[in-house]
């Protein structure tokens, strides 16, 4: 079985191979030697070719939040089926022509900078979201027309709440 781990645009491909009832992990035909043991509390000892790491792994949907040697990575892990499925879904969403802008963090909508019907450019500011004493401008990740505004100024929003539909 193939396992795909991706961080941002970078993808690593691993092969899970069963031999005599034991699972082995390969990367480009090289077998990976490791020990992986839970310490409790989402903490793991991960000894990779003798190199010792303390890893924190917290799963959130298909994203694995990994803390490792002072660094942080959001890793998406998929097998062949889930990877193909996701590609299909993304294609379908894109071809429908609608994109939904969501709140990346919870906060308070302090300003809406566009109106329904406005034509907008890539990376144009849409909404100001205030949280922890700081203003965060949410920008458009594509050009288009503002189809619908789902929030109002002064409204508190949750993380991932839908804010604006761009067509």
């Amino acid at each position: 079985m193939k396992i795909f781990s991706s961080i941002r645009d970078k993808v690593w491909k691993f092969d899970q191979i069963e031999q005599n009832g034991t699972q082995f992990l390969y990367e480009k035909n090289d077998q990976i030697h490791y020990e992986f043991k839970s310490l409790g509390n989402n903490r793991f000892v991960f000894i990779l070719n003798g190199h010792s790491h303390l890893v924190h792994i917290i799963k959130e949907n298909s994203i694995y939040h990994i803390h490792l040697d002072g660094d942080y990575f959001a890793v998406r892990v998929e097998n062949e089926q889930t990877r193909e499925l996701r590609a299909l879904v993304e294609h379908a969403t894109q071809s429908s022509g609608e994109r939904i802008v969501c709140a990346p963090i919870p906060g308070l909508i302090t300003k809406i900078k566009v109106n329904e019907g406005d034509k907008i450019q890539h990376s144009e500011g849409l909404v100001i979201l205030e949280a922890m004493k700081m203003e965060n401008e949410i920008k458009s990740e594509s050009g288009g027309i503002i189809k619908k505004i789902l929030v109002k100024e002064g409204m508190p929003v949750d993380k991932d709440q839908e804010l604006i539909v761009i067509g």
Partner: protein
Amino acid sequence: MFKKILIANRGEIALRIARTCRDLGIKTVAVFSDLDLKAPYVHFCDEAYSLQGKTSLDTYLRSDKIIDICKKSGAEAVHPGYGFLAENADFARNIVDNGISFVGPPPEAIELMGNKTAARKRMIKAGVPVVPGTETAIRSKKAASKIAESVGYPILVKAAAGGGGKGMRLVDKADDLDFSIEAAQREAGAAFGNSDVYIEKFLEKPRHIEFQILADTKGNIIHLGERECSIQRRHQKVIEESPSVLLDRELRSQMGEAAIKAAEACGYQNAGTIEFLVDKNRKYYFLEMNTRLQVEHPVTEMVTGLDIVKDQLLIASGQEMTLNKSVECFWGHAIECRIYAENPDNNFAPSPGIIHHIAPPSGPGIREDSGVTAGNEISLYYDPMISKLIAWAPTRNEAIERMVRALGEYELQGIHSTIPFLIKVLQHKRFIKGDFTTNFIAEEESLFRMNEKRGRVAALAAAIYFEQEKNKKKFQSNAENTSSNWKLSKRKKVLDRR
């Protein structure tokens, strides 16, 4: 000395102040909002009173509630920390009018230094170099244009009552001047109820260097040397250190004297900080004075051996401070990193949430000033700074190494933090060389690049975890579907083999 004081603040700085009080045998009174009941400073203080509310406006900014609790608890003094009411002259006056001591400067000094044009004027009079520009608010377009030409473009148009970048405009050429002044005036009027603006030369790529001042009521006034705070993101300090690589003995002594002059000029007492900008020719200009304890005061404590909060309390109670002359040489080198609950991979978006697990680093040369513990929630209501990590070593390079080691040891689960970003800054060759300005973070794309070697280890760990989870599920569903002995023994075999 006081017997009991109230700490009108929260988080790490409330705990920091309470620790010194404990050392001095002073009882402490904590105040807390509904969200802070579980915060360590509340339990560490000897007494704790609720401020009944959630938002800052309902709690830590309510001087009436704070004064009531002073009276109820018998606190003789108030330490305001930083932020909230710390630089509010009315609050300071209110405290003093109620017969309570204020652990900070006289209200007049807070007021003067809070008004940017008034402060500039006073500094010019005292002979402290300020950034070239107008001395007072702009009264005519013609006068503005003349000043702008004389200091040379680019210039900044700034709000007199301002702060936080509001009512500020960068002007590159004469054509844009009129328009920018009008825009800045409108913005300043809306933000501060005062549309006065003034002109300052825009210093390109300056360094931010500040001097710690202590002044007691006996007429002693000294400086404790500099802190360099040039590593900033959007005018927010990120890493501070003492001493600065830029300064030599001569420049330190010149700037230190200027800082003392500045503090004297406003009748300053207690601890304060004079901030300077230093241009590429090592010319320094007064930027502003912070009339309170600074977030970054620990680096000065590490290289001087002093406890600045202790000196604040000595001064406020009318005693002499610990030292009676300025610090001429330092004990090694200290660096502070501010750890924020922000996600550096997502444009530093705030990352509220509950801290599931926290294990801060320790060992040689490491100090932590933190305000949180496991189970605490980082809420959207307050500042996202959760901890300050301070590293000391005999030399700057060793202090950097210790800080990198300590950040790498820091375990924190449940929220994003700026730790990975801080490590990248500390390991950047320009930082190590000391070759940076306040533009450093904005200029260096490489700070946001992924470390692919570590990325691969993370990718592998995730893949292994994914695989183990799947196997676990498989066994669970087997076990749930049936309890025949055959299947169970098969399952056991597979488990044993792993």
